């Protein structure tokens, strides 16, 4: 039987005033917290381990195991920090979740904090979404007013403070140790690991850093149990996940489904490709995951299958491009993004993304040289695995995968500008006449 949708987090996003405590509780919210407070924290950790929940922020590390890495309590503080810095190109699930249903996250934060023995939790939300920040601040106010936060929560004797912190615009702060530095009031640059945050995280204390969707999935697991969660998904990629379809698809949007659904199934639900055009390439999990093509339409979107097919499930950010799109133009823009966002701490990433951008820009202008493809691959080889954090690794993904599948387009970049091969107005959603060439635009964003 074909996979169907399974809305859990998104089940009531279209409810009247969906973001309020009243609406959330009317749909069963905070049952999980009441149940959790009657359990032993260690049993909660076990339950989440048993559920098989894996981090929804991209890496897919088992969430319960991450909690279990915290050392034994030593009487000092331990922290939960929610990574709500959603910035990976194509990724657009946590921001709408927090706008439509922030209490889902808040309840998850309280349960998770209780499970790991944390008494002060933080939500680090990117600063470029002011209304989402308003909704979170208000949701925290409502939770305090209901006695779900603060002292002696629901008479359990458990105390928790929750601070929502706004960033200030830096993709790198999605990297968990850079996020911690940023939260400490520093430049957001990644830390050398080990020590991992579980041992020395925020203020050098044991810290769990979890993605929004991971934490928001916890209340459901507590109410339904590990086995309920495992009814969805595959054996090693359990549960539900938000799949974000964007680009040249008829009905882009958020589709919450069991892991293991395929793009073919999702595209069918989303009305297929825009105007019946052919699918050319897509990202399974954001721009840092190697691109796929039409030959991967039936790859089950779970961690193992996507990995076996040569990419990563990432954040399930399915950016879909049709036959009108220049892969060279797309990759150039992604590389300019990585160059812009490279924090500058390590040489391979700082210098490498700069060089990649220069080469991609000349290929986009049709001024590449015969050696450029090899040079790109050589550069990627010197970044991947040699950069301080995953940003550098991620920057190489679009380049190497695009060369793998569309080498002839890179070769064409030695003589023909990308906007001649693929006029940009054909890719846009509206009719317009380009004023200047894409080649002139390439490189504007230093």
């Amino acid at each position, binding site marked *: *039987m*074909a996979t*169907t*949708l*399974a*809305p859990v987090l998104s*089940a009531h*996003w*279209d409810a009247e005033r969906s*973001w*309020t405590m009243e609406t959330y509780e009317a*749909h069963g919210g905070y049952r999980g917290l009441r149940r959790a407070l009657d359990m032993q924290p260690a049993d909660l950790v076990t339950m989440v381990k048993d559920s098989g929940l894996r981090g929804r922020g991209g890496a897919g590390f088992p969430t319960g195991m991450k909690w279990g890495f915290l050392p034994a309590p030593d009487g000092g503080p331990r922290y939960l920090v929610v990574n709500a810095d959603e*910035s*990976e*190109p*194509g*990724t*657009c699930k946590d921001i*709408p979740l927090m*706008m439509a249903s922030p209490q889902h996250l808040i309840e998850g934060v309280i349960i998770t904090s209780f499970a790991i023995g944390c008494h*002060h939790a933080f939500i680090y939300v990117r*600063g470029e*979404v*002011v*209304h989402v*920040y*308003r909704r979170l601040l208000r949701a925290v106010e409502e939770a305090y007013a209901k006695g779900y936060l603060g002292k002696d929560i629901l008479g359990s004797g458990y105390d928790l403070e929750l601070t929502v912190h*706004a*960033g200030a*615009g*830096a993709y790198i702060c999605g990297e968990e140790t850079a996020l911690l530095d940023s939260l*400490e*009031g520093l430049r*957001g640059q990644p830390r050398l690991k080990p020590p991992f945050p579980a041992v020395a995280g925020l*203020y050098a204390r044991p810290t769990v850093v979890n993605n929004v969707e991971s934490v928001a999935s916890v209340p459901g697991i507590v109410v*339904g149990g590990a086995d*309920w969660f495992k009814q969805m998904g595959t054996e090693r990629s359990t549960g539900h996940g938000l*799949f974000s379809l*964007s680009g*040249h698809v008829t009905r*882009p*949007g*958020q589709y*919450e*489904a069991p892991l293991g659904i395929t793009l073919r199934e999702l595209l069918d639900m*989303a009305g297929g490709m825009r105007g019946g055009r052919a699918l050319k390439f897509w990202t399974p999990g954001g*721009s840092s995951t190697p691109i796929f093509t039409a030959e991967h339409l039936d790859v089950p979107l779970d961690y193992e299958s996507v990995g076996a097919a040569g990419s990563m499930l990432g954040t399930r950010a399915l950016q879909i491009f049709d036959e009108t799109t220049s892969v060279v133009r*797309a990759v150039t*823009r992604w590389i300019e993004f990585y160059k812009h*966002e490279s924090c500058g701490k390590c040489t391979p990433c700082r210098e490498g993304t700069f060089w990649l951008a220069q080469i991609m820009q000349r290929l986009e202008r049709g001024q590449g040289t015969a050696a450029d493809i090899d040079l790109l691959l050589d550069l990627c080889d010197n970044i991947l695995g040699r950069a301080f954090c995953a940003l550098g690794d991620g920057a190489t993904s679009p380049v190497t995968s695009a060369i793998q599948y569309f080498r002839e387009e890179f070769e064409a970049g030695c003589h023909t500008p990308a906007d001649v091969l693929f006029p*940009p107005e054909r*890719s*846009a*959603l*509206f009719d317009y006449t*380009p*004023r200047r060439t894409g080649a002139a*635009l390439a490189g*504007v*964003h230093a």
Partner: protein
Amino acid sequence: MSVEELVPRGEGQAHRTAYDDETRARLAADAAQIVARYPQERSALLPMLHLVQAEDGYVSPRGIAFCAATLGLTTAEVSAVATFYTQYKRHPNGDYTVGVCTNTLCAVMGGDAIWEHLCEHTGVGHDETTPDGKVTLERVECNAACDYAPVVMVNWEFLDNQTPQSAAAVVDALRAGEKVVPTRGADEVVTFKEMSRVLAGFLDGRADEGVGAGEATVRGTVLAREKGWSAPAFPGDEPATGTGAQAAAGAAVPRPGDEQSSAERPATTARDVSPEQQERKQAASDAKEQ
């Protein structure tokens, strides 16, 4: 790199170096509230820089000095942080930042065309402000709204599914002092300084304004309900004969012909899930939508 010509600063162009006593006292009270949110005071630096922008419209030298003095840092340490993050402005910002997403997906869907049009329309480029001081244009990176591409942000509120014409109309309205309503956000776009105060963690009473979600956000939610798809019911919850669709929807019994009426019966036999039956169901759903 070219050597900039040294031009003496005219009156009003020089940075002000300190706040008057009243302003300083007010900012100090705000800063104390911010510091109280954190176990260690240095964590207050990012929100305090937003606070400085709420006062001065950019990260001013006197704002840097204020942060440094409040948190026991050097001005160099504060500057090091302020220069790292793109939301902190190093020179006075317009009343409204208009940010056009030109990351790959939005760019391909039309963001590049919007950017070209706005530059031509306003005569300014990236991180430049119109002469009336109203609008600062920016190329922005992915803002997590790809299902609404192409996206334009105005003071970090979402304007979804833009075109060159719609974006230019927004810029014109902002410059004319007219109200601009974001697609998903507050009832109107507030000024850069007002927005910066929110980012410093001070609510402005607008959290309950606007929609919970846009059309694209709820597409899966709505489709699942139409099709009768749902996650498995929680054990112990009223099972809605199999899939729990009706229970999950939490709605009253639908009238015949409405969404979730009889056509949405969960599959119970193999025939229910045959391709023919799926097609018939789809046709019925489609008919209802019209």
